[in-house]
């Protein structure tokens, strides 16, 4: 090892650490944002699905084949009943 080599190593490792830290921090944030974006899109898709169900006035569990009543509307009085909005999650 040359003269003052330990200081050279100290300096270069510090440089590598800080530079690497900057890059790593940006990359981790990028990954986290990608994940968050996917989550947001998932929520958006679910919520769009919910709205479709609400307009129809049924939940998937309601629309089972054995419960079908062809020819008879599910609403008691079609002229006054309104379609249900999706139930709010509490």
């Amino acid at each position, binding site marked *: 090892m040359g003269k003052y080599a330990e200081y050279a190593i100290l300096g270069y490792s510090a440089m590598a650490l800080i530079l690497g830290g900057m890059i790593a921090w*940006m990359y981790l944030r990028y990954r986290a944002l990608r994940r968050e974006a996917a989550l947001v899109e998932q929520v958006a898709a679910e919520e769009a699905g919910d709205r479709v169900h609400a307009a129809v006035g049924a939940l998937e569990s309601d629309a089972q084949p054995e419960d079908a009543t062809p020819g008879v509307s599910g609403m008691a009085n079609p002229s006054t009943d309104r379609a249900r909005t999706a139930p709010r999650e509490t």
Partner: protein
Amino acid sequence: MAYSDRRTRILTGLTYAALALFVVAMLMDFFYVGPERQQGEAHRIFYVHLGSFLGSFLAFGTAVVAGIAYLRSRDHKWDTLGLSAVEIGLGFATITIVTGMAWARPIWNTWWTWDPRLTSVAIMWLAYAAYMMLRTGIEDPERRRRFAAVYGIVAFASVLYTVIIIRVRPDTIHPVVAGPTQADPEGAFEVSGRIRDTLFFNLFTFAVITVVLVWHRIRLENLSERVARRKMEVLADL
């Protein structure tokens, strides 16, 4: 976000180029150039020390231009450039200070001294750290961008100070590579031959690395804004 294919290809190419340049620069720093007569291996720090200072200088200079451009056009892409440039610049300024300290300990026998050059770099670092604090402190986005642009311009005075101070106070013990030769530098050496080649290569490498990092940081910021906006849209509809 629709980034043009061509731009993304340029960025990718530049990123690989920066990586390759960095590897070559490190090899040059350790193998092409030999240990200096008096300073031994510690002298090698000089290359990354100057390289990182150039990086921070370029970045902070970009931030001033971005600040002025934002105040004139109010297009918030200039603010994104300013923010990215200051963040990256601050990182490089940190590297400059830390590598400087690693060099100073064996050569000057102290980690730090309130020499004019060191003081001015410390002031520059504090000014831009304050810029980041200002951004977190203002809530209204439009006002935040405006104030950040103004402060980015004011803070650049500290960068100019680092250059002016050696004209006014030439009695710095910090070696000066480009500028008036001064009374009693400690640790100066002749910049010629292999030393000069390695220096210029390192400077070029760090300039390219700065550009690449700032560019990536801009894209990261754009992504962050897009996600936040989408989140608000989705939550509003809920």
